[in-house]
């Protein structure tokens, strides 16, 4: 007998499932999976460039040397040899962690879940960036966290606003449990937290005895410039917990991430992980170890950097060519995403419905907020599609946006609804999350 009827089970659900809701937006996103749709919505790395020979060699070696071990359970905290690989990745970003403080997890997403499970009672405050990683939203919701989002600009989270918020919460007698941040090439905004703000954020954490969860999946995917130090290295692992992942530098399919946290916290996380899944896949851990022993993991990351830099440039060019002057977007120095903001009269969830008719998709900005903001913004991914698709996808979205801008102009009796921004506007003056589009174009064309 099939048993799909919800009412049979509705009375049995925990109250927390009430907030684990499906939504119109999620229903729309389900349509984006169709093959004819150019999806700039996903956050997918391009795994097609990974050499199948390497995969075969790694798998063959495990079969020959460690078959029984690969098929067996492992320790909850992860294999020592995997932690050595993690140490290499962290060292590449200027960090050193005691292997005792590291737990190997089933992807970075599990870290989010475990940290929230460890720290949050229903109603507790979590501080996040606004916009925040859309995948963190269901995690925070499922633990019934009260999420307070801090505005961002071109230098990342406004730490001054964070301090104001912390003061306000303190006056209300509320103490946030942790600050969740993606400081480098933030998902979805694409911006990077500046060094002064990194320093200040770590100071604030120390002053207020506040934990910070630094989520750093994209740090090594840097397309230009020098990396600022991670929060973890500035703090020395006292208040900053670190989330790393192999998803963007190797493969999301192997589901391997890690968390570094102070020993008392890591102990609790360990217990939480034991309950969740006993241990991370031993097979995946050994594959990573075998792969790292070939000694070429940095070469592969370098090849991804080349690939994604070129795709990012293609997307920036396409945006300049096809989006109307009223649109603005970030110019990320790394990572996978561009955040575009349209005039406020455009609702990007409605726009997605329209764009899907033209077989193109993006993530509506509301997915990155828990408070209904972000409705005129969108997240665009440039890592998962080839350049021809990026150009065509952006062209299609631009056409729909242009159509809506023109319609709005007609409706309000203003053919040109917003005055173009002054070309002389300095990015540092702008101090906004988005760069002026006309300035961008003028710069590329060598003049206005």
């Amino acid at each position, binding site marked *: 007998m099939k048993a799909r*009827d919800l009412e049979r089970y509705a009375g049995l659900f925990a109250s927390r499932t009430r907030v684990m809701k499906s939504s*119109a937006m999620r229903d729309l996103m389900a349509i984006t999976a169709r093959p004819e749709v150019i999806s700039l919505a996903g956050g997918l790395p391009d795994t097609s460039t990974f050499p199948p020979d390497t995969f075969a060699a790694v798998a063959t070696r495990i079969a020959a040397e460690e078959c029984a071990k690969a098929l067996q359970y492992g320790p909850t905290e992860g294999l020592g040899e995997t932690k050595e690989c993690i140490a290499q990745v962290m060292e590449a970003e200027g960090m050193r962690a005691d292997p005792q403080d590291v737990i190997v997890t089933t992807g970075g997403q599990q870290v989010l879940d475990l940290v929230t499970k460890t720290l949050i009672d229903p109603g507790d405050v979590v501080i996040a960036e606004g916009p925040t990683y859309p995948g963190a939203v269901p995690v925070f919701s499922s633990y019934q966290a009260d999420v307070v989002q801090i505005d961002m600009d071109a230098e990342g989270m406004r730490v001054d606003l964070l301090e104001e918020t912390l003061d306000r919460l303190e006056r209300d007698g509320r103490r946030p449990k942790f600050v969740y941040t993606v400081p480098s090439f933030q998902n979805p905004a694409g911006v990077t937290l500046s060094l002064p703000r990194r320093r200040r954020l770590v100071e604030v954490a120390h002053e207020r005895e506040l934990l910070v969860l630094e989520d750093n999946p994209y740090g090594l995917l840097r397309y230009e410039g020098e990396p600022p130090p991670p929060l973890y290295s500035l703090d020395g692992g006292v208040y900053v917990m670190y989330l790393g992942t192999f998803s963007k530098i190797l493969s999301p399919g192997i589901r391997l991430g890690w968390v570094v946290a102070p020993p008392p916290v890591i102990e609790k996380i360990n217990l939480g992980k034991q309950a969740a899944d006993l241990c991370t896949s031993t097979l995946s851990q050994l594959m990573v170890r075998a792969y790292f022993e070939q000694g070429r993991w940095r070469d592969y990351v370098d090849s991804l950097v080349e690939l994604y830099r070129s795709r990012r440039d293609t997307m920036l060019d396409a945006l300049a060519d096809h989006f109307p002057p009223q649109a603005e977007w970030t110019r990320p120095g790394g990572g996978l995403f561009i955040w575009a903001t349209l005039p406020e009269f*455009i609702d990007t969830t409605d726009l997605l419905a329209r764009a899907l008719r033209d077989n193109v998709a993006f993530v509506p900005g509301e997915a990155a907020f828990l408070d209904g903001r972000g409705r005129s913004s969108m997240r665009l991914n440039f890592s998962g599609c080839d350049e021809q698709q990026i150009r065509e996808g952006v062209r299609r979205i631009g056409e729909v946006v242009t159509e809506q801008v023109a319609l709005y102009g007609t409706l309000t009796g203003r053919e040109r609804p917003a005055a173009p921004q002054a070309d002389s506007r300095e990015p540092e003056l702008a101090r906004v999350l988005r760069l002026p589009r006309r300035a961008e174009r003028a710069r590329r064309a060598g003049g206005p």
Partner: protein
Amino acid sequence: MSRVSVLKGGRSLERQVSLRSGARVEDALERLGHQVVAIDVDLDLIARLREARPDLAFVALHGPDGEDGTVQELLEILGIPYTGSGVLACVRAMDKVLTKHLLLEAGLPTPEFFAFSQTAFRDLGAADALGAIEERLDFPIVVKPAGQGSALGIKFARTAADVPAALVAAFSYDSRVLLERHVEGRDLGVSLLAGEPLPVVEAVPRDEDFYDFEARYEIGRTDFLCPAELPAAVTERAQELALRVFELLGLYGFARVDLMLDSAGELYVLEANSIPGLTDTSLLPQAAEAAGIGFDELVGRMLELAAARAPA
């Protein structure tokens, strides 16, 4: 028993809702002893129907293509009897503008409205008429796409300044939109089965200020009261009104008519749905349940009605 193809999914924005409706229908049909072939509607629809050779098609699609007469037309061409209303009634019900004009002509109450196509703005300077509309409709007004079955794209305009953005949103879904006076009051749904009105359902949003698309399909966001707690005379009028709409549009088998009851006790027809949802939180199954008709029996009756209409 019969071979039944359940048509579900498709490309509509209501795809997920349709998949949920379809899954429940499949289960019910199997429990009733029918042979079920589920078809997620796509480019190969005709080929799959020819291969399946069903005695009947159960149309569990929502939104454009499934609910607007398109699929019904194809089923007519293939000579496959199907559940629910025929092509013409689907066309009338899917198009809110057409529905409302028919209601006006028949003297049935519906909130005052004006409808526009995108070309009216683009080619005929209709924006110049917006001021006149704003004078004639009291705010807030509701702006809706003409042919979207769900609440997607429906926006409130509290002042004249909200109207242009609301129109832009509505035009994301359809090339025609309508601006309608907002009736403040209670949100009622009257479902009909075999031309008989079922108990009235009232949708009471829990904390939203607008009964939105998301709340409609979620347990926990909206409370459904069935039968709605209404004076007997109001219930009777609502059911009678729904029946007149059903007949006026030429609907067949089953349907749902959405009404508003204002504080003065006046009823207004908002729209009719030729293929209302059949999910766990949908109004038609709840209304049937309140009338003592379980889901399996409901699905069975829908199928019988389809067979009864089929040419011998």
